[in-house]
């Protein structure tokens, strides 16, 4: 039976991926360009990576961004997981509709609105702007993304596992820690990583709530990009792409190896 993949599909896939990856490939290519132009090749060089290493402003901003991203990811994973449980497991409770709305709206809310609104809150209550305000703003939208990932996993979990644990004498909190968390682990890890990257990637919201003190990496990159293209930014982009690719490939390999082992186990189980 023809599985329904036509030449048209294959062509579209190839063109689509070329479209998605050509700019990234060119970005990487020109990060090794000796010249200052990012469009005319003038020999191989790694000097832009060297300059990046001595750019205090970028290093400083990167450090700020990493700190914010890890605090954000941790807090968002906790709050997002609680949200997921509240929505998928607690049945009806008062204010559930509002809660659902607040937990899904950040997924699509334009950044400029979220950024402005959050800033006005901090100004209204007189909270000094800086790293803390950026982190809080990031947690708010990141938790919604974590909730989506965790909810998908919870929906696929057999609820009787928790019931069995309680039936065998484990109290609710113990059940959660000993049974639920280990089973949710893959979702928690990907939720954490997603929250981390979302935070690392955000320009608009951070710009609104940052105040004069703190500058995140995207804010510095943006101010440089506005002045024109520079191979240094290409080098930075290449590093980011590389790190992300390595992380994802590792995660995928681990996942696939588990799958393969599972397949072997299943065969073993068939034989008894």
């Amino acid at each position, binding site marked *: 039976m023809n599985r329904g993949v036509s030449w048209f599909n294959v062509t579209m896939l190839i063109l689509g991926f070329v479209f998605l990856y050509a700019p990234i490939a060119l970005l990487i290519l020109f990060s090794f360009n000796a010249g200052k132009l990012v469009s005319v090749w003038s020999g191989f060089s790694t000097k832009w990576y060297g300059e990046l290493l001595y750019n205090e402003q970028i290093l400083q901003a990167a450090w700020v961004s990493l700190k914010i991203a890890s605090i954000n990811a941790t807090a968002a994973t906790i709050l997002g997981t*609680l949200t997921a449980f509240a929505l998928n497991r607690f049945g009806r409770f008062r204010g559930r509709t509002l809660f659902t709305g607040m937990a899904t709206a950040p997924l699509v809310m334009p950044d400029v609105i979220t950024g402005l609104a959050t800033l006005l809150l901090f100004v209204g209550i007189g909270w000094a702007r800086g790293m803390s305000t950026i982190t809080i703003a990031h947690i708010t939208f990141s938790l919604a993304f974590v909730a989506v990932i965790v909810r998908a996993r919870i929906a696929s979990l057999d609820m009787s596992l928790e019931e069995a644990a309680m039936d065998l004498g484990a109290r609710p909190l113990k059940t959660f820690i000993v049974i639920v968390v280990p089973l949710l682990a893959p979702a928690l890890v990907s939720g954490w990583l997603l929250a981390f990257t979302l935070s690392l990637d955000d320009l608009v919201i951070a710009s609104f709530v940052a105040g004069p003190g703190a500058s995140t990496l995207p804010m510095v990159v943006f101010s440089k990009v506005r002045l024109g293209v520079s191979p240094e930014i290409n080098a930075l982009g290449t590093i980011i792409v590389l790190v992300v690719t390595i992380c994802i490939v590792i995660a995928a390999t681990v996942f696939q190896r588990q799958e393969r082992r599972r397949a072997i186990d299943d065969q073993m189980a068939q034989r008894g």
Partner: protein
Amino acid sequence: MKNGRFGISGRTLAVAAPYLWLLVFFLAPFAIVLKLSFAEPLIAQPPYSAVFEWTGGLLPRFTGNFENYAFLLSDDLYINAYLNSIQIALFSTLLCLAIGYPMAYGIARAPGAWRNALLMLVILPFWTSFLIRVYAWIGILKNNGILNNVLIGLGIIDEPLDILHNHFSVYLGIVYSYLPFMILPLYANLARMDESLLEAAADLGCRPWKTFVSVTLPLSLPGIVAGSMLVFIPAVGEFVIPELLGGPDTLMIGKILWNEFFQNRDWPVASAVAIAMLVLLVIPIVIFQHYQGKEAGDVK
């Protein structure tokens, strides 16, 4: 489970923490934006007038006005930006759908070993810096950029094409950045589809193209809606792409809001713009939430 001995169960606490967080840091800010859109700008800290005045009565007196909204309506700039944003977001969404659907379909029907790899290729750009990916297009599209150089080098054109800082480059940037958001929900939907439905249709004498139109397409409608909302809603408020890839005439509300806030320092007008944008997006957001709830296994 029954409540604990102290009246408050762990369950209540588990709901309360994210609930309060979202109330304070997500919902309350919107109330403030709404309030501020009725204020007047001041050169002060903070730069706006009070909207409610405490006059000793039971309720504070409303001293705000609708001037900010009147101002938005009186100036062509804002109305054009508004319409422009809708137009750009709408056509970008359709373009994403046109490119993303065949891709999602191809991935969903690909052999098992390929499927994960292809899916990873879609997700990968989504995890890498959005700003850097938009930036990459500047180097490609600008006057003496890679694309023009290549085309001139090949002798296809003599003069460099003007393809940066106009509507074209904004469309390109949005489609490029948001394509994964279209493909992922479509893929999730198509991959779940029972293949025996297609086999049943074929068995009943339906030709492949007809099967696609009468079975696959209607069943994938939820995926289409979700993907379209994930593209359309943020695209309406997009700032980075029109700012970096658009020209001076590419007016979009996101950019207007940014400029009102950062350049004109007119917080009340920026708030009014935000409220105007929200009014436009309320229906798409509700549609999206409805779908999202169903996907995530909401209790009915």
